[in-house]
C-alpha cells in the first residue's frame, strides 16, 4: 500500500516540479476572491451586483435592509404630500432620491453634453478660512454646496455647463492616448454673484458596496498605514484626514468621501440627505439654506421636524452599511495574475492596499472580523496638479485625495452602463484613470506607461477583476 502511494505521489511531484512557480505572475491568495470577506461578499455579478446584502444578519436587520433600500430608492416629494414618510424635498436640492445619483447603488457619470442637467455630480463651494471645527467655510450666499434644482416656485441656485479639453499623450512605446480635462462654468446664478476667491470641488457619486466594512476597520490599523513623512522614502506618504464628528462632537479619523471628510456613514448619509435632497434629520435639523435664502422663502412648507424621522434614517444608514461587495471574477486567470503581479511590482499597492480586517465596532455582528480586499488605505495622498481641486477640506490640501477603494470597479459598466472614473468622472476608463495619477503616484504611473502593451492590458484586466 505504501508503495502504491509512492508510485502515485512521485509522478504528481514531478508534474508539480515541471510546472514550478512562475515568477512572472502573482499567486492566488486564499479567499482573495471574497472581496467583502466571507459574510460581506455577494455572488450576484449582474445588474444588481452592488445591491446585494451581507450574509448572516438577524431577521430584524434583514427587515431594516428592506425598508432602508426603499427609502434609498424612492423619490422624495415636496411637502405636503399624502405619503408623509417621503415628503419634504428641497426647497433646493441636487437629487430627488439617493438612488437617482447612486443608480442601482452604483456610480454616477458626468453630463455628456454641456447643457445636460447634472445627475450625480455636485459641487462643493468654499471660501478661504475654516469654521470652528476645522472644516471649510461655505459661500456666504450659496452655502457649502451648489444646488442646481428646486421645488416649484423656488429658484435653483445655478446651472453648470461642463465642457472638456482634450490633451494628447503618448506611451514610451509610441501608442497614443488622449485625456480630457473638465471645464466648469456656473451659469444662471439666481442669488447674485459667487463670493470672490470662491473655491469649488466637483464630486461624483461613487458606488456603495462594502462601506459598512470600511467603517469598522479599526482606526489604529488605518493610522498604522500612514507614513506622513515618507520615512521609507518610497515617494508615497499617505496621511489621515481628521474631521469633525457632529454626533460625538469631537475630531476623529475621516474615512468617507473623495477627501475623507466624513467620519462615518450616519454623518455621510445625514449630510447627503441635507445637502443633496434638502431633507432634514436630527443630526442636521436645518435646511441647507443660507440666511439670505431663508429670508427669501420664509413660508416654504417642510415635511416634518425633522423630515426624516430617526427610525427611518437609521434604516437607511443600516442599508448603506450592509451592501455586500461583489465576488471577484477570474481571480485565478493567468492574465489577471500577471496584472496582479505588475500592480504590486510598480507599487500601486503602496496606496491601493489589498487587504485589511474589520474590527468589532457597531452592532452588525455579520460585519465583524472579516478579512476584506478593498484596495485602499483610506488615507490622503498628493495626486499632483492635474487632478487638484485646489480646495482644502479639513486636513486635506487642494492636491490631496483619498485613495479610492477599487473593489467592484470592474462591474460599474454592468451596473451603470458606463466606465467613467475619478472624483469628477473625467476618466473614461481604467486606463485613463491610471494616466491621470500624479504627485505621489507619479512613479507608479510612469512605470505603468513604461510597461509593454500586453502588460498594460494585463494590469487593467486585473483591476477589472476587482
Amino acid at each position, binding site marked *: 500500500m505504501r508503495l502504491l502511494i509512492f508510485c502515485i505521489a512521485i509522478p504528481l511531484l514531478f508534474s508539480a516540479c515541471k510546472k514550478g512557480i512562475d515568477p512572472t505572475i502573482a499567486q492566488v491568495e486564499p479567499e482573495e476572491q471574497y472581496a467583502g470577506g466571507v459574510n460581506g461578499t455577494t455572488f450576484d455579478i449582474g*445588474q444588481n451586483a452592488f445591491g446585494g446584502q451581507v450574509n448572516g444578519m438577524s431577521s430584524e436587520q434583514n*427587515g431594516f435592509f*428592506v*425598508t432602508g*433600500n*426603499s*427609502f434609498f430608492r*424612492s*423619490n422624495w*416629494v*415636496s*411637502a*405636503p*404630500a*399624502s*405619503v*408623509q*414618510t*417621503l415628503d419634504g*424635498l428641497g426647497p433646493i436640492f441636487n*437629487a*430627488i*432620491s439617493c*438612488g*437617482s445619483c447612486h*443608480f442601482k447603488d452604483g456610480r454616477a457619470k458626468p453630463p455628456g453634453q454641456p447643457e445636460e*442637467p*447634472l*445627475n*450625480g455630480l455636485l459641487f462643493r463651494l468654499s471660501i478661504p478660512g475654516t469654521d470652528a471645527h476645522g472644516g471649510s467655510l461655505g459661500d456666504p450666499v450659496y452655502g457649502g454646496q451648489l444646488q442646481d*434644482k428646486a*421645488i*416649484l*416656485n423656488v429658484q435653483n441656485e445655478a446651472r453648470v455647463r461642463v465642457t472638456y479639453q482634450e490633451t494628447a499623450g503618448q506611451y514610451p512605446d509610441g501608442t497614443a492616448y488622449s485625456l480630457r480635462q473638465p471645464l466648469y462654468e456656473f451659469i444662471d446664478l439666481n442669488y447674485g454673484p459667487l463670493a470672490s476667491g470662491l473655491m469649488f470641488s466637483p464630486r461624483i457619486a461613487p458606488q456603495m458596496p462594502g462601506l459598512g466594512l470600511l467603517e469598522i476597520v479599526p482606526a489604529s490599523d488605518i493610522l498604522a498605514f500612514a507614513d506622513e513623512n515618507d520615512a521609507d522614502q518610497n515617494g508615497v506618504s499617505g496621511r489621515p484626514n481628521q474631521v469633525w464628528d457632529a454626533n460625538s462632537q469631537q475630531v476623529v479619523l475621516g474615512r468617507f468621501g473623495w477627501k475623507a471628510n466624513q467620519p462615518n456613514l450616519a454623518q455621510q448619509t445625514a449630510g447627503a440627505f441635507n445637502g443633496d435632497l434638502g431633507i432634514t434629520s436630527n443630526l442636521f435639523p436645518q435646511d441647507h439654506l443660507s440666511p439670505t435664502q431663508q429670508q427669501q422663502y420664509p413660508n416654504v*412648507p417642510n415635511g416634518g421636524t425633522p423630515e426624516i424621522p430617526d*427610525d*427611518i434614517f437609521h434604516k437607511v444608514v443600516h442599508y448603506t452599511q450592509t451592501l455586500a461587495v461583489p465576488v471577484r471574477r477570474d481571480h485565478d486567470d493567468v492574465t489577471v495574475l500577471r496584472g496582479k503581479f505588475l500592480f504590486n511590482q510598480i507599487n500601486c499597492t503602496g496606496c491601493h492596499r489589498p487587504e485589511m480586517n474589520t474590527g468589532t465596532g457597531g452592532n452588525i455582528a455579520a460585519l465583524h472580523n472579516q478579512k476584506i480586499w478593498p484596495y485602499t488605505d483610506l488615507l490622503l495622498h498628493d495626486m499632483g496638479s492635474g487632478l487638484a481641486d485646489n480646495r482644502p477640506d479639513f486636513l486635506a490640501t487642494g492636491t490631496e485625495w483619498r485613495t479610492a477603494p477599487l473593489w467592484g470597479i470592474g462591474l460599474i459598466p454592468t451596473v451603470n*452602463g458606463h466606465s467613467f472614473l475619478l472624483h469628477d468622472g473625467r476618466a473614461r476608463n481604467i486606463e485613463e484613470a491610471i494616466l491621470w495619477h500624479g504627485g505621489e503616484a507619479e512613479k507608479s504611473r510612469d512605470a505603468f506607461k513604461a510597461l509593454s502593451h500586453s502588460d498594460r492590458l494585463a494590469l487593467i484586466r486585473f483591476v477589472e477583476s476587482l
Partner: protein
Amino acid sequence: MFLFLAAASLFVACGEKEDVVASLKKDALEQYADLVLANYEDSYNTALTLKQAIDAFLAAPSDAGFQTCKTAWLAARNPYGQTEAFRFYGGPIDDADGPEGFMNAWPMDENYIDYVQGQPNAGIINNPGAQPVISKEVLVGLNELFSSETAVFTGWHALEFLLWGQDLSISGPGARPYTDYIVGGGGTAANQARRGQYLQITIDLLLEHIAQVRDEWKTDGAYRQEFLNEETNNESMGLIFFGLREFAKTEISGERMFVAFDTKDQEHEHSCFADNTIADLKMNLLGMKNVYYGSYKNSNGTEISGSSFNDLVLLLDPVKAEAVRVAFEEVEAKMNAIPAPFDQAVANSSTTITETIAALQILGDRLAEAGKAIGAEF
C-alpha cells in the same frame, strides 16, 4: 445483448423526452409572448376607454361623467396590474429606454401638480407664470431635469390624483369634486382649464407608453423576435423566472407591503388616492399566475391558454410543480384575508399583512426552483 438493447432504448427514450421538452419550451415561450401581448392590448384598450371617458367628461363636466372616469380608471388598473409580472428583467417595460417610470411612478409629487390641503395655489396647474404651457414635452422635460429613474408627475397615479384628489379621510378614498373641472362659472378651485389639460395630456402620454411596450411584443416586434430565438430559450426562461422571483420577493412583499407595514405610514401605499391597493396586489398575483400557467383572461371575458411553464415543470419535476401550486394557493388565501382598505390594515398592524409577506417570500423561492428545474438560466 439484453443489456445493449435496454441501453439503446434508454437512449431513444431520453432523446424523445429531450425533443418533447425542447418543443414544449418553445411552445411555452410562445404562449408567454402571446399572453404578454394580449395583456398589453387589454391594458391599452381599457386605458383608451378611460381616455374616452375623460374626453367626454371634459367636454361637458358632470358628476356622472366624473364617476365614469373613476370607474374606467379602476377597470384599467386591472389589466395593467397583471402586466407587472413582465417586469424586473430588463424587458421592453423597464429596460434602459423602458417607460415604466413614466407610467407607474410612485410616490406622486402631488403638490407639484395641483393644490393640496393648505396649499390652494400649489402645483403646475395653478402656476401659469412658472409653466405657461402644459404639454407632453413639458412634463417629460421636467422629469429629465429632476434626473430620476422615475417620473413624479405622470402616469397612473397622476391620473388617480387628478380624479380622486388627496385622501384626507380615515376610511374612504379622496373626494375631489368634479366641479374642479368646470371652466367659466360654477367651478371649484382655480385654473380648471389647465387642470383639464393636465388630465388629458397625462392619459395621452400613458397610452403612448403602453403602445410602445405592446408593439415590442407584437409578432413582428423587435424584442419578441429576439426573445423567442430558440437558441436562447433557457436564457429567456431565466429572465422570466428571475423577474417573477424579484416581483414576489422584493417588489410586492418588500416594497409594496413590508415597507408600508414597517413605517406605519397610512398612505405609504401605491393607490393611496383611490384606496385601490389591495386590488392592485391581487392583480399583481394574478399576473404571476398567468405567466406560470400560460393563460390570460381579457377584461372582455375572452380567455387564452396553451402550453405553459407549469406543463414543463410537471413533466420534469412534478414535486416542484406541486410546491408552486401550494405556494400560489397560500398567498391567495393570505391576501384574501387582508381587510380592505389596505391603509387601515397597515394602521392596525394586521398580521394578515405579515403572513402574506411570508407566503410571497416562499412563492418567490418555489418559482425560482421550478424555473431552474426546467432549465431557466439565471
